[in-house]
């Protein structure tokens, strides 16, 4: 047994991702070595042959994500793990998976950039690359864990969402979360929901690979199951064949958009701590959320009360909840391990009367609770 169901263990974040993938029923992994994500590939190289599932180290990241798409089209639940430079190379395949509507999970353990940057140190620099890295309008789902248990659970959720929405899902732990060790208790086997691979229920001759449904997602047949279909990165009709007809092009593009924007309730995930009653809120995600909670407690001892707002699902951004909960605030402090990325989304969803204050750290180290406390005291 690879996943220690029901047991309490000291586990690393990346290890929890690998175990989460096994728990979610991963059948194919392809990757290319890159710090600080390597533990995920290494552990799966150990686990997957034991399970008789397929693991491969490809010649680069482009090949890795390409192999992932091929494997999922042939029916295997697939995941890769990388970091910034590899994530940049994977943008080509990510766009293809969005366009061809192929479920897969891409774990990007974020390190300092741009380029080779700070390979062994933490950053949250890929937030906008996750949203807009590949060319053209496209749907994106991205989740950011803040502790080791979440690395396990959120990997399973990422697999589930990728099947439910038939689209790639990006998991964005930062380097601190990937490399930290925490004591966690695994759930009992069967306590976590694992989405099965959908199977079409129509006869072969009626099958449309991109059938239009109310949810904008249709069950995907896999290659070798008797349903023969065509897949392309070209804009295509419901059968998957290239089209330039106005109605079909617009229909496809709108369906890609609406499958996310019309099902936001299933995707939105935020955590709020004393946000409602306090005029000052700290907006934080990933490892910075941990510092924000610690800062909140430190401030409380000094009789200064602040709220903490955490988006767990970063993309789609929780527009409505941010508007409802934060637009009445006096100050929103947004500490990020970058020069300001998600802060622009907060600014977009709040009025000019709200002071949205950045706090950046870009030297490869964590934002400490003290730094957040000082920043809050300055603005209060």
């Amino acid at each position, binding site marked *: 047994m690879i996943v220690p169901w029901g047991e309490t263990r000291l586990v690393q974040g990346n290890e929890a991702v690998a175990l989460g993938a096994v728990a979610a029923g991963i*059948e*194919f992994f*392809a990757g290319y070595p890159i710090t600080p994500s390597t533990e995920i590939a290494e552990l799966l190289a*150990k686990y997957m*042959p*034991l399970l*008789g599932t*397929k693991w*491969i180290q*490809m*010649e*680069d990241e*482009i*090949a*890795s994500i*390409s*192999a*992932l*798409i*091929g*494997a*999922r*089209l*042939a*029916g*295997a639940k*697939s995941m890769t793990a990388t970091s910034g430079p590899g994530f940049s190379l994977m943008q*080509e*395949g990510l766009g*293809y998976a969005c366009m061809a509507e192929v479920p897969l999970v891409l774990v990007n353990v974020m390190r300092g950039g741009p380029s080779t940057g700070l390979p062994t140190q933490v950053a949250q620099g890929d937030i906008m690359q996750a949203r807009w890295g590949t060319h053209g309008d496209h749907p994106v789902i991205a989740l950011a864990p803040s502790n080791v248990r979440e690395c396990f659970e959120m990997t399973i959720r990422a697999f589930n969402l990728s099947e439910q929405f038939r689209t790639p899902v990006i998991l964005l732990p930062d380097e601190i979360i990937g490399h930290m060790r925490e004591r966690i208790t695994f759930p009992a086997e069967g306590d976590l929901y694992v989405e099965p691979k959908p199977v079409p229920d129509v006869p072969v001759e009626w099958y449309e690979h991109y059938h239009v449904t109310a949810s904008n997602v249709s069950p995907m047949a896999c*290659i*070798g199951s*008797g349903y*023969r*279909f*065509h*897949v*392309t*990165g*070209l804009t295509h009709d419901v059968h998957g*064949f*290239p089209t330039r007809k106005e109605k079909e092009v617009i229909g496809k593009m709108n369906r890609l958009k609406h499958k996310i924007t019309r099902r936001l309730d299933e995707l939105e995930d935020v955590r709020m701590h004393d946000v409602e009653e306090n005029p000052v809120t700290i907006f934080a995600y990933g490892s910075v959320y941990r510092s924000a909670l610690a800062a909140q407690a430190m401030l409380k001892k000094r009789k200064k009360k602040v709220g903490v707002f955490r988006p767990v699902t970063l993309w789609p951004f929780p527009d409505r909840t941010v508007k409802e909960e934060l637009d009445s605030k006096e100050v929103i402090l947004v500490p990020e391990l970058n020069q300001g990325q998600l802060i622009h989304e907060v600014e977009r969803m709040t009025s000019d009367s709200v002071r949205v204050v950045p706090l950046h750290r870009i030297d490869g180290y964590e934002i400490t609770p003290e730094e957040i406390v000082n920043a809050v005291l300055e603005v209060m």
Partner: protein
Amino acid sequence: MPAPLPYEYKYLRSKKKFPHVWCPGCGIGIVMGSIIRAVDSLSWEKDNIVMVSGIGCTSRMPVYVDFNTIHTTHGRALAFGTGVKMANPSLNIMAVMGDGDALAIGGNHIIHAARRNINITAIIVNNDNYGMTGGQFSPVTPEGAKTATTPYGMIEPGFDVCNLMEGAGAPFVARGTVYHIVELDRILTRAFRKKGFSVVEVLAPCPTNFGRANRLGGPVEMMKLLKENTINISQAKAMKPEDAHGKIVRGVFVDKVSISYEERYDKLCEKAGNLAGASR
């Protein structure tokens, strides 16, 4: 009573997808016909055949054949195909690519697919240039040739595709042309049957771009060039080196026994299971 359709129609998405995109005199359709005849001779089920391709003229082929088809991104046909093959090793997989697709942007993938010996047949239609984008030079454009991006002549040496693939470890390497079509049918049949990575380079004319830029004449003249400029392996062996100079050799250059990646992976799983069992 109308005459029955040729058996090739069984393998074509003939109702809606034609006419095809290829220019008059293009060789790619001939390669498609040869692939269909080879597949038919092997009695493969259409459900178990996967055709992957990259981007370019050749890579438009999957639209027209009634297999499981994936038109991927530029150069990545073999990477996609590797994932398909590993996920379901019972599928018969072929990758159809042009010369630029397979050897420039896909160069990394093809050498590693050959080294890894994944059980896929790679068919490289070599028409000396990038056709779809308007006739730019590729890694096989002959020295001195004019293309849209070599207005003063090509200065880079080209790859010998078959030597490259042999060096990378492919257990089956062959070259044919769209003029020598019976020979090509046979080569493709052997390549499909091969366990492991098999490569077939097919020389084909591009009268629209390469032919016009180099004043090689129309489709008929370019076909004649394939006939006159190539010799088969046994002819080459019988000829004096000076007579064979400048001729392109056709035939099967490598056909050796090998263990495919999938077989190795299965053994790895067994070994891992045994080691885990022993340590318990």
